């Protein structure tokens, strides 16, 4: 199991430097105008940040009020004893529940969780791994099925939610394995 921990750690450590050097070098060798292509893409990144800002205001105001009013403590106290045996910190619940519904909503909640519990807390790490490994399932289903006029989703929702649930369970297990030893 130590090998797994080392492999995951090495992957995390090497991924960004490798891509940061490798992609531009590879593209340059293939005669891509790397600099201006990068800047074009970066412009799009700024637009994304600008576009999600109002959504972040909406969700952070709501969760700020929720936390400030003591409702988050209530939730943690109420659900803590039920979730503790499963290794699930109750603070991660809002992120996990909103993740399939809204990308910017779960981004805001995850930011709030990191601020409240610390980015390297067990809860924030579980939230981070889960958020990175699942998608806004309901949104994607609505857009893709809507685009071709599908009305009957059949087993799409149960199957997609099974995947999300597995992603969450895996996040809980992996984070415990790596950082709660």
């Amino acid at each position, binding site marked *: 199991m130590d090998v797994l921990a080392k*492999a*995951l*750690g090495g*992957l*995390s450590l090497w*991924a*960004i430097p490798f891509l*940061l050097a490798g992609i531009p070098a*590879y*593209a340059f060798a293939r005669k*891509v105008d790397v600099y201006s*292509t*990068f800047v074009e*893409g*970066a412009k*799009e*990144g700024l637009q994304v*940040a600008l576009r999600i*800002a109002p959504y*972040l205001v909406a*969700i*952070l105001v709501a*969760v*700020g009020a*929720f*936390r*400030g009013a*003591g*409702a988050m403590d209530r939730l943690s106290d109420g659900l803590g004893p039920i979730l503790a045996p499963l290794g699930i910190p109750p603070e991660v619940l809002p992120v996990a529940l909103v993740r399939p*519904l*809204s990308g910017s909503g779960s*981004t*805001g909640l*995850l*930011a*709030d969780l990191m*601020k409240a519990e*610390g980015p390297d807390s067990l809860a924030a790490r579980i939230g*981070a*791994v889960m958020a*990175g*490994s*699942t998608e806004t399932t309901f949104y*994607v289903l609505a857009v*893709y099925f809507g*685009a071709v*006029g599908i*009305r009957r989703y*059949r*087993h*799409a929702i*149960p*199957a*997609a939610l*099974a*995947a*999300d649930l*597995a992603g969450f*369970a895996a996040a809980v297990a*992996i984070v415990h394995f790596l950082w709660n030893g």
Partner: protein
Amino acid sequence: MALVWILLLVLAFVSAAIDGRMDGLTQGALEGAENAIGLAISLAGILALWMGLFRVADAAGLTRKLASLLRPLLARLFSDVPRDHAALDSMALNVSANMLGLGNAATPLGLRAMEQLQTLNPNPRAATDAMILFLVVNTSSVQLIPATVIALRAASGSPAPADVIGPTLLATSVSTVVGIVAAKWFARLSWRKLPSLAGEG
């Protein structure tokens, strides 16, 4: 999402009323609004970096390369789509673009895949097994580098913001495999089967 939002606000109000913490609620809300803009700004830099980098990757043909690696895998997975069907190409490109974090490029490819799958659909109002499997793969297999999550961790002062990359890849593999198994398994349950496809599978 509207419901979640209202629920958070109303529950905050009720909880504050019970505990007499109206000042806490107001303060929390105002701080949230302020933090949101700071957060958007600190996300902007890292998002710009990734979108720039992966735009370069795309221009170098890496999306296509990844798609050509994925296509045989998808052809095997989507046993009810003819092996030379264009839908397989679109799906492979969509999944590759998603893996590279090119969300804006991925969506039109995914919608094209859905249209191509729709041409194989005997009942255009009901999802086919292939469509469901595609959406499960789409929603469960995501970015190789979870850029937004890393940006959030960096913005909140983690000393090693990238150390969730490995664990995230493992978790996303688990969710993809479970999703595929679930989609295949649910498709076999006859009670929701499309009558016209009853013989298959």
